[in-house]
């Protein structure tokens, strides 16, 4: 009974999550333009400055932007506590994250690492304030259900991701810190994608899949065991001394991802009402990408123990599958559902004093029409395919960049249209 644990008295103002959701597509567009601008050596190596700039625009500028906005919305509702600081905290996090992500990406893309001297404090500020504000309600909530359980581990993973990332960035900037060991980059990547992103998607999924798609709930033992297993695997991956330990941890992480994806696909098959729903398509695409990435990771790990080495582009392929196939897909799908739902919820609350106006409120399907959401799915599939091809051959980088631009621009257009509809309706209610 997912909604039974929700506190609807602690819904934050609409502008708090929306400022994050509406910024994200533009950061995605900048990432796409960067891909277009440096198409020749776009995917030379996973550690090339061009790839690092693109990756951080997608992970910080797009993914973290939406995820932080969603947490500002979800945590007060799930935990039943308003966030300390309210709008001021959200503004500080939003502005710091935008500026920090842009400066970090610019530092990589232009190879002007002195920009990190500005990017590091800004990102530290953004995530520090965010974790302090959201950590308190997350930790205080006794019990809190499976969603909060997974989100707590996600927040811890974020803390480690940020700490490891900032250590690396400080080294780039030439600050007098001990140089980060070679595997810190891999650990940063693993905690960010395998920890923060996977654990957060799990936690949010525990809440929204049964609620929005009317499916049975995840069994509680599985919902708790999977995040714990992910977290333990990441600890082994980071602190394991022997390469065998680290490879076993990678394989374990991949297996958990496959189990999670397979169970969620099966759960979506058990929807009580099988109406066409674009968000379900996005979930399936996302979970299929996660499975493919996990299988590729298993193969990549196994290659270490065979005579045939893994092709160098395999790491790029896994990265593209996890970032754009898994995370961006699920985010796009959820935005198609969450934005109209939040807009409707706030309009509904605004019109409670005049119940006769409820009949005039736009339905969710009018805020983001199904045809527009279907086009988002098509653009996204095309962009994902383009990016996967570009990960294999630079010849596809320009088409991939164009398709990514179209994907994010379409999202910006869709969200803006929903916001316009909200404003006109809210104006009618207040008149």
């Amino acid at each position, binding site marked *: 009974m997912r909604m039974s644990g929700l506190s609807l008295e602690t819904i934050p103002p609409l502008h708090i999550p929306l400022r994050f959701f509406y910024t994200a597509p533009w950061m995605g567009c900048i990432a796409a333009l960067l891909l277009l601008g440096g198409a020749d050596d776009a995917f030379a190596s996973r550690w090339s400055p061009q790839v690092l700039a693109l990756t951080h625009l997608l992970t910080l500028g797009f993914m973290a932007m939406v995820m932080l906005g969603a947490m500002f919305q979800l945590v007060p509702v799930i935990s039943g506590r308003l966030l300390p600081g309210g709008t001021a905290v959200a503004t500080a996090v939003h502005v710091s994250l935008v500026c920090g992500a842009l400066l970090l990406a610019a530092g990589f893309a232009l190879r002007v690492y002195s920009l990190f001297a500005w990017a590091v404090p800004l990102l530290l500020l953004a995530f520090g304030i965010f974790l302090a504000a959201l950590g308190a309600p997350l930790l205080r909530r006794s019990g809190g259900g499976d969603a909060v359980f997974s989100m707590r581990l996600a927040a811890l993973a974020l803390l480690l991701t940020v700490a490891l990332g900032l250590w690396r960035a400080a080294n780039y900037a030439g600050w007098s810190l001990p140089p980060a060991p070679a595997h810190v980059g891999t650990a940063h990547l693993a905690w960010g994608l395998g920890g923060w992103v996977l654990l957060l998607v799990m936690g949010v999924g525990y809440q929204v899949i049964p609620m929005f798609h009317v499916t049975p709930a995840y069994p509680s033992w599985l919902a708790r065991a999977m995040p714990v297993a992910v977290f333990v695997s990441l600890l082994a991956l980071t602190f394991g001394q022997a390469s065998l330990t680290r490879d076993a941890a990678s394989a374990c992480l991949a297996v958990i991802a496959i189990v999670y994806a397979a169970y969620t696909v099966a759960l979506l098959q058990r929807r009580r*009402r099988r109406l066409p729903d674009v968000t379900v398509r996005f979930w399936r695409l996302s979970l299929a990408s996660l499975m493919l990435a996990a299988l590729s990771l298993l193969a990549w790990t196994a290659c270490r123990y065979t005579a045939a080495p893994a092709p160098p582009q395999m790491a790029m392929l896994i990265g593209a599958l996890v970032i754009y196939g898994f995370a961006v897909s699920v985010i796009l799908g959820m935005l198609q559902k969450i934005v109209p739902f939040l807009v409707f919820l706030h309009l509904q609350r605004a019109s409670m004093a005049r*119940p006769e106006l409820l009949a005039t409120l736009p339905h969710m399907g009018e805020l983001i029409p199904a045809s527009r959401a279907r086009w988002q799915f098509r653009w996204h599939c095309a962009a994902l395919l383009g990016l996967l091809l570009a990960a294999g051959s630079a010849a596809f980088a320009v088409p991939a960049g164009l398709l990514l631009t179209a994907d994010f621009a379409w999202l910006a257009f869709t969200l803006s249209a929903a916001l316009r509809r909200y404003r006109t309706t809210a104006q009618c209610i207040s008149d």
Partner: protein
Amino acid sequence: MPSEVLLDAREMAPPEPFERASALLRELRPGQYLRMLHHRVPYPLFDFCRRLSLICQVIESGSAPCELIVYFAADETALREAAVL
């Protein structure tokens, strides 16, 4: 005996149960009551009912995970006599 208006929202995703229920409740007249079957407790509806001076009662042993009876205060005795409440 008040007449029943039935809304089975067990297979509906939010906010459809609220949309349907609020539309039915706006049309509800004394002598009628709404029986709503839901897969969760529809909290937002409680506030809406209060504003329309309707009474909400969750039936614990209902046929759905959550069964809600919404009625006018004047009909309460008749509903109790008919074992609806």
